[in-house]
């Protein structure tokens, strides 16, 4: 009799044990596999030109939407696009368009990129502030970075070897300049390849004969003034065209400044949840005001319409 009760007791306890275990397991599964729509954490990766701007946008967004978490990483446009293809980020920042090779690879892996233009950048050519040169043509910039013009004297400057600073091949800015200014020719092997825009600014500030290229947002310090130690060159489309500076807002908006480009963000397929909401914020008048405050330029009518279509 006693034995039976004991057995029953044991059985009960075992059943209890399994029930609790099952319950715990279920809770664990529910906790670790949140529904996609409720995703409150996204990861953004890519362009170094965009990283500061997107960071500010993300901070502003997170301040307004407590509970949302957005992590922003740099690394270069190529790095961001590769990460999106490999599924290791939710949004890729890039300052150049997708290459055909990357698109092929993406479709092969079932990634269907949707591309949003979130700001306009005026690619800026910077030299040391003591450099007497103020204006270059597009062709001259191309020749300098291809290594054909090697001395500042040729351009009317001091008799000094030109010291070239650029980005690494994972940079969208590197690819953009190569395509649009170097006319798809090789960079000079003498270009010192730096880790990011900020490092180029730093190097040109110290190097009297240095020249480099950076996104327009990097020309300003935290107070919104143009950084000391550098000179932002005015660029002429060709020999006979007037020269314009990337600091001149009107010239960039009217496309008179020759080297401007959209800066993009890509998602895998139609964005949803936090990612979609964040893109909407970036494109809103409020987001675009931040874009302008950070030194970049707002998106025009046409691109904006394209963006809104991509959000649907």
């Amino acid at each position, binding site marked *: 009799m006693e034995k039976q009760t004991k057995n029953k007791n044991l059985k009960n306890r075992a059943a209890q044990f399994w029930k609790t275990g099952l319950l715990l397991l279920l809770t664990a599964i529910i906790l670790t596999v949140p529904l996609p729509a409720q995703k409150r954490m996204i990861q953004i990766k890519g362009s170094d030109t965009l990283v500061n701007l997107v960071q500010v946008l993300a901070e502003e967004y997170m301040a307004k939407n407590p509970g949302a978490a957005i992590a922003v990483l740099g*690394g*270069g446009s*190529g*790095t961001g696009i*590769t990460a999106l*293809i*490999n599924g290791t980020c939710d949004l890729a920042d890039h300052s150049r368009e997708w290459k055909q*090779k*990357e698109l092929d*690879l993406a479709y092969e892996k079932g990634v269907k990129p949707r591309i949003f233009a979130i700001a306009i950048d005026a690619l800026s050519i910077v030299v040391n502030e003591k450099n007497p040169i103020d204006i270059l043509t597009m062709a001259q910039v191309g020749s300098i970075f291809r290594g054909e013009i090697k001395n500042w004297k040729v351009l009317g400057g001091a008799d*000094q*070897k030109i*010291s*070239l600073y650029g980005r*690494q*091949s*994972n940079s969208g800015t590197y*690819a953009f300049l*190569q*395509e649009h200014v170097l006319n*798809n*020719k*090789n*960079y*000079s*092997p*003498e*270009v*010192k*390849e*730096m*880790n990011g825009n900020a*490092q180029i600014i*730093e*190097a040109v500030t*110290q*190097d*009297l*004969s*240095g020249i480099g290229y950076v996104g327009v947002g990097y020309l300003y310090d935290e107070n919104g003034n143009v950084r000391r130690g550098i000179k932002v060159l005015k660029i002429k489309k060709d020999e006979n065209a007037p020269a314009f500076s990337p600091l001149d807002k009107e010239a960039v908006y009217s496309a008179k400044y020759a080297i401007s480009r959209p800066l993009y963000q890509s998602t895998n397929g139609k964005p949803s949840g936090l990612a979609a909401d964040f893109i909407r914020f970036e494109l809103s008048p409020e987001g675009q005001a931040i874009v302008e405050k950070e030194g970049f330029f707002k998106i025009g009518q046409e691109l904006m319409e394209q963006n809104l279509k991509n959000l649907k």
Partner: protein
Amino acid sequence: MHSIKKKGFGRDLKESFIKNVFKISGLLTILTLLGIFALLLYTAVPAFREIDLKEFFTSTRWDPTSPEKPEYGLLSMLVSSLLVTAGALLLAFPVGLAVAAYLSDVAKPKTREIFKPIIELLAAIPSVVIGFIGITLIGPLIARVFKMSHGLTALNGSLLLAIMALPTIISISEDALRAVPQSYAEASLAVGANHWQTLIRVKIPAAKSGIIAAFMLGMGRAIGETMTVLMATGNARSFPHGFLQSVRTLTANIAIELGEVPYFTTHYYALFALGLVLFVLTFIINLTADLIMEKQKRKLQ
């Protein structure tokens, strides 16, 4: 009787268990090494479906993303790696040996006890920090001394790598010098040689193999270092003609390009081929160092 036997059996079990754990750990290390080598080889070989082997080893141009024609020549980077490493050793070896001799022969035991941990602490500084010092301090200094517009040169990399190789060189040569039997020095002093002569003519030659091993291990440390050179040498792709030029080393190139390269393309495989070259290089260096050290041990016994 019975209980003793039982205890002995338990101990045997425990002992053989521990023995096996050690054996497996040892085997695991070897397996890892073989695994890395196999993986490198496996991923590097497809590169040569499209790259000419001769071009790979003899061309000085490396530009895989070129819109004109992708080029895969490692010579500039290989020479840059060797140049920066040679510079580092030229600087670090004499200093390292002098410090080792000081610690083993001149310094009082108390001084040595203070110095040695400090030197070993030098090895604990993260390479990013050393690279940062290169950008902000040593680079501009080189620019000023050599009247150049910038200091992001091979020399900058060499100076920083010298700092990083010093702890290895010092501690291994010091061990080698201290392993020289006291009787050698006593004999030398007994025949009338002074302290300096004993050190230079007796102790250093006796510790020669250990000192060479220290040199080789320092070299291995320097040639594989990535972050510091990536930050400090400017990364220009041109063939190096001297220490006052910007250079790009093998390691820096892999670090720069591996993050962005589309997987399973020729460029991707080519980067692994660079890794394989680097692996073989450091493997030979470390193996030589090991063999030399082994020789020294046997000789002194």
